[in-house]
């Protein structure tokens, strides 16, 4: 048997199927993926790497660029934590309780996914500006949201929190009530049931959702630029800096900074995949 196997020429398919259409579908899939994603991705990374290491490093660590990382990553981190807190609250309420209007609430959670970012941007700015519905109550207390880093955090939280809800909610809904009943019958109180039974299952999902929210916030552009004020060194996000470089025809600088951002995106993507892989392996073991 192994003899015949060795004789067969190497093929992409590892197990044959009676169904037709593998070549056509995989061919189109790979060609489309290459044209739309891989070649453009390679273009930007190659441009970034053509600079040479020292120029690249110099470009991506210029003071204004470093300041933009601080603004972007700092705001994204705070926004991710806020998203985690409010996302968990919403996921919990939606998974555990029934109340009038629940279906509408459930649908509304996706609004930040559906609402164009530019619309979110101008609308949040109108709300938090000095004369806005919310801003007018905050400004007298010295809380400035629009055109400050706080505004950036607000916009980033807006686009980020649905990721947490949609990651955590299905896990909470799937949780077998028998586990909690068992814990309760053994004398566990509410807090113990939450920390010992629910949290260990929900935590990886919360981590995934928070990482996705952070990734989205760090790359966000449309909703942030209107409310940020875009002051270099203070409220200028990295994505805007790339656009600014492009408008100055500094294609090399833009490509270098974009490569740095891409590296961050891929690290987060890898982390999310690792979390999911570990969860799957653990569940596989349990079964």
């Amino acid at each position, binding site marked *: 048997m192994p003899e015949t196997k060795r004789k067969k020429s190497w093929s*992409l*398919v*590892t*197990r044959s199927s009676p*169904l*037709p*259409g*593998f070549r056509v579908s*995989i061919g*189109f899939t790979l060609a489309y*993926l290459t044209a*739309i994603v*891989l070649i*453009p*991705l390679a*273009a*930007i990374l190659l441009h970034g790497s053509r600079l040479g290491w020292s120029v690249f490093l110099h470009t991506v660590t210029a003071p204004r660029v470093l300041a933009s990382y601080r603004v972007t990553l700092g705001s994204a981190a705070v926004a991710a934590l806020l998203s985690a807190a*409010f996302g968990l*609250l919403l996921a919990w*309420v939606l*998974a*555990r*309780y029934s109340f009038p209007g*629940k279906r509408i*609430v459930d*649908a*509304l*959670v996706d*609004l930040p*996914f*559906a609402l*164009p970012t*530019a*619309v979110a941007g*101008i*609308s949040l700015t*109108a*709300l938090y500006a000095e004369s806005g519905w*919310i801003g007018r109550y905050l400004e007298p207390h010295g809380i400035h949201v629009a055109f400050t880093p706080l505004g950036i955090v607000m916009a980033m*939280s*807006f686009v980020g929190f649905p990721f947490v809800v949609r990651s955590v909610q299905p896990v909470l*809904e*799937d949780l077998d*009530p028998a586990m909690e*009943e068992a814990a*309760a019958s053994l004398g566990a109180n*509410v807090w113990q049931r939450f920390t010992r039974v629910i949290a260990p299952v929900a935590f990886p999902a919360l981590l995934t959702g928070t990482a996705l929210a952070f*990734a989205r916030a760090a790359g*966000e*552009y*449309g909703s942030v630029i*209107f409310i940020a004020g875009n002051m270099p060194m203070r409220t200028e996000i990295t994505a805007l800096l*790339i*656009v600014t470089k*492009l408008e100055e025809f500094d*294609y090399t600088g833009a490509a270098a900074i*974009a490569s740095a951002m*891409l590296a961050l*995106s891929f690290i987060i993507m890898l982390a999310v*995949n690792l979390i999911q892989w570990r969860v799957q392996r653990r569940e596989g073991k349990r079964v």
Partner: protein
Amino acid sequence: MSNRGANSSSALLQPSMQQRVGRVVLIAAALVFLAVFLLLPVAAVFTQAFSQGWAMYRDSLRQQDVLSALRLTGLVAVIAVPLNVQFGISASWAITRFEFHGKSLLITLIDVPLAVSPVVAGLMYVEVFGLHGWLGPWLSEHNLHIIFAVPGIVLATIFVTFPFVARELIPFMQAQGSDEEIAAVVLGANGWSVFWRVTLPNIKWALLYGTILAASRSIGEFGAVSVVSGHIRGLTTTLPLEVEMLYNEYNFTAAFAAASLLTLAAIVTLVLKKSIESATGVHQHGQEKESES
């Protein structure tokens, strides 16, 4: 599915007074958060749009530039979405119906556009098709314009909406399995009739769901399109870009009037999405279990 915990028949989990208060507090907190965080921005869009009265609103939307932006937005969606639908179907057919080397890598690569900042996505196409890009000199020799023209906007939109249909179909077709299709083949059906008579009827709702998500994103995309558009009024501005330009000209009423159209599109998206979820069980978590019990 959703209220197992709350309505559990187990006496052990009967909520105490304290828990009932806790539940009310948590629900109230969630509702207040949603009202302030989600509903106020939507309300602000419409209030600002109508702040100068209905006539002004109507006139803002009748501006030539707004109308051509609306047309371009529609055109881009009509080109980008069907291409991604075709990609989604063929990728999920290959991935869920065959075993092959590098499958998990392929699944990961399909997700890449979700992880990339929209601005970086736009820049990628400038690097390929822009004047200083790989194909730039050749394109300008042949007088072809991609960047700062409609094809660039279409490409950027295809990129940002690339994974939506595939991501919806892959788990759905995986769960469905290929038994019916194999039966059809064994009974002598050819590839196309298997697809049209067996696969498509089975996946139609999941396909529609993914298509709606892709269309919604394609209508609203801002960052990626903004980089490749060049902001030429009447020619390369989509509706979200028109919103930005009007806003930056301090023409707030017109900006919010245009934004109100996009907000309506978002609301329609949410309604359609929710209707498909509850009518068909697509994307409805735990639905299968529910119907079994």
